[in-house]
């Protein structure tokens, strides 16, 4: 008798395993064929359903589809497809849009146009106006507290704080306590974000709060939440307000560059709301939104801006950047000569 029950259990078990194991396609689904046409349509459609800046940048995305779709067929090579995608995303003028081919032969393509000089648009790939090693020639007792936060002292009792990205929140809190504690007696502070290429906005919000005397709105953000171009979440307000155990409210110069981007720029929006801050350097990059990665059937990756981030006055600086109060830009020759004229200008402003 027991043998019968045992057989029934085994039968059920094996039937279950066989059925479940044999129907992964039913349980998971399938991928569409990895063809150039399918990849082109998915690339275009993902932007269409997720990109947050069509309205801000006045982009006719359907027109771009019509312009490029004829260049792709099922015989299109990877190189040709890469060229098509690159040409499409350059039109967005968005430094947060990147194309990552994954076959190992085609380089990552940054979509941002960072320079408009003498009537020519350029994607800048090499930062030629900032080098922390050159900065260190001016700074005494420089201490790198985390991968993204370091500090030291400049001549004339001026403090220097390098903020190049965002650590984990607790790490940033600890580093800011140490840095601002040691710099509390300085007469002014240079906050250098020329090498800040991005990170996590709430951590930058915390760091900005270490310089705030009161609560002020500095940014609103809304993100795509559906497939049509006007599908957005409700706007979220971002405030800069006093954070940490003490705030530095003496004069501050914020150093920016054309390579200051993403979190570097939302941080700039926050710092601009503080009365004691003067912005010195170059106009920032002009890319504020979060930019998650998406994928194509061929395994390639690409990132795109899903949000519409505005300054407190409602103005969007996407694709434009934030202009400094005092414009100055180091040249490559300056750096090669060990000179940081932008930093010297900052000290001059604080010495006034």
């Amino acid at each position, binding site marked *: 008798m027991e043998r019968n029950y045992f057989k029934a*259990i085994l039968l059920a078990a094996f039937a*279950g395993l066989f059925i*479940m194991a044999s129907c992964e396609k039913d349980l*998971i689904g399938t991928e569409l064929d990895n063809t150039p046409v399918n990849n082109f349509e*998915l690339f275009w459609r993902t932007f269409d359903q997720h990109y947050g800046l069509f309205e801000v940048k006045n982009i006719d995305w359907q027109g771009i589809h019509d312009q490029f779709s004829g260049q792709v067929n099922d015989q299109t090579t990877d190189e040709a497809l890469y060229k098509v995608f690159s040409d499409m995303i350059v039109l967005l003028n968005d430094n947060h849009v990147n194309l990552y081919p994954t076959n190992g032969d085609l380089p990552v393509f940054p979509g941002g146009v960072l320079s408009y000089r003498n009537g020519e648009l350029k994607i800048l*790939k090499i930062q030629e106006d900032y080098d922390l090693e050159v900065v260190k020639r001016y700074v005494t007792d420089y201490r790198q507290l985390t991968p993204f936060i370091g500090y030291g002292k400049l001549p004339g009792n001026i403090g220097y704080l390098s903020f190049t990205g965002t650590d984990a929140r607790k790490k940033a809190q600890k580093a800011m306590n140490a840095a601002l504690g040691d710099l509390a007696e300085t007469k002014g502070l240079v906050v250098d974000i020329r090498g800040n290429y991005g990170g996590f906005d709430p951590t930058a919000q915390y760091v900005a709060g270490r310089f705030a005397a009161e609560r002020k709105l500095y940014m609103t953000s809304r993100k795509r939440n559906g497939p049509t171009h006007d599908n957005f979440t409700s706007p979220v307000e971002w405030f800069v307000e006093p954070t940490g155990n003490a705030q530095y409210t003496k004069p501050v110069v914020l150093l920016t560059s054309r390579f200051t981007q993403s979190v570097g720029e939302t941080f700039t929006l926050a710092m601009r709301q503080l009365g004691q801050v003067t912005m010195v350097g170059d106009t920032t990059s002009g890319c504020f939104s979060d930019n*998650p990665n998406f994928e194509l059937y061929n395994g390639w990756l690409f990132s795109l801006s899903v949000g519409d981030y505005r300054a407190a006055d409602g103005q969007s600086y996407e694709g434009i950047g934030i202009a400094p109060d005092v414009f100055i830009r180091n040249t490559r020759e300056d750096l090669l000569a060990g000179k940081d004229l932008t930093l010297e200008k900052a000290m001059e402003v604080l010495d006034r």
Partner: protein
Amino acid sequence: MKWKFAAIAFLMAISITRAQDLPMRRWMPTHNRIGLALGIGTVTYQDKNTSPLIYRSRPTSLRLFYNLESDRFLFSVDLDLKLGSTAPKYHPGRILYFQEADYEGNAEDKKFPAGGTLLAGRLGLGAYYKVAAAKESALKLAVGARVSNELFYPQGWTSSGMFNALSLGPEMLTQYRANDHHSFSASVRLPMTALLARLPYDNTVSSPNKTQTGGFFSRSQWVGLKKFAAPTLTLGYNYQFNPHWGAGLNYELGWYRIEQPQTMKAVNSSFLANFYHQF
């Protein structure tokens, strides 16, 4: 699909309903069992909120478990951890190529794999009533409920598939003890409701004054079967060396269908070898 699940349920039901007139045996030789299991498995998933690609991981599994048997009830606590690399099933060896240069004229080409990792964890608490009709047979049945928290945390160039679910649902256990040494077991569970956290449509978590973890979990919401379906089947064989020590093999098959904000499906199968102590 429905007929396939119906067939499994029917076969199990036949086994259970005929098991009413066999000699009495307990589920375990003693009241408490504590054990450790190690194993391997496969997790396959596709998250249409992020990617059209099907991902596959072959993680290593670790399970710690504790079982308690009283006259009428069974209780269980188990912690499962899975850790392994993950990659698109049809593009396992993706390489990224970066061209880097600096103002001093140095140029460097960098190539590295676009890999990812999968961490999955589950903490489960179950309480089950030993069905009277099956109490005296070698083939036993217990029905009850299980509370479980599952974290599915893939990391890489996308966060495809990420979710956390605190779920509650019924579970049915059966055991066949052939003799003092050999026993076979099976269980089926189906969460009916879950507090589910998923990335939103935009696939980001940043929001004012919140950490990444806080931003992710702040979007948790209660959902029903329509948005979170996760049936799981387990099969086991145990060999009892003596009343205090035993070892066994387990197989677990789980399927997930999450409809928030877009469809994510996953299949998880694991083989584990366990070793346990009873007291």
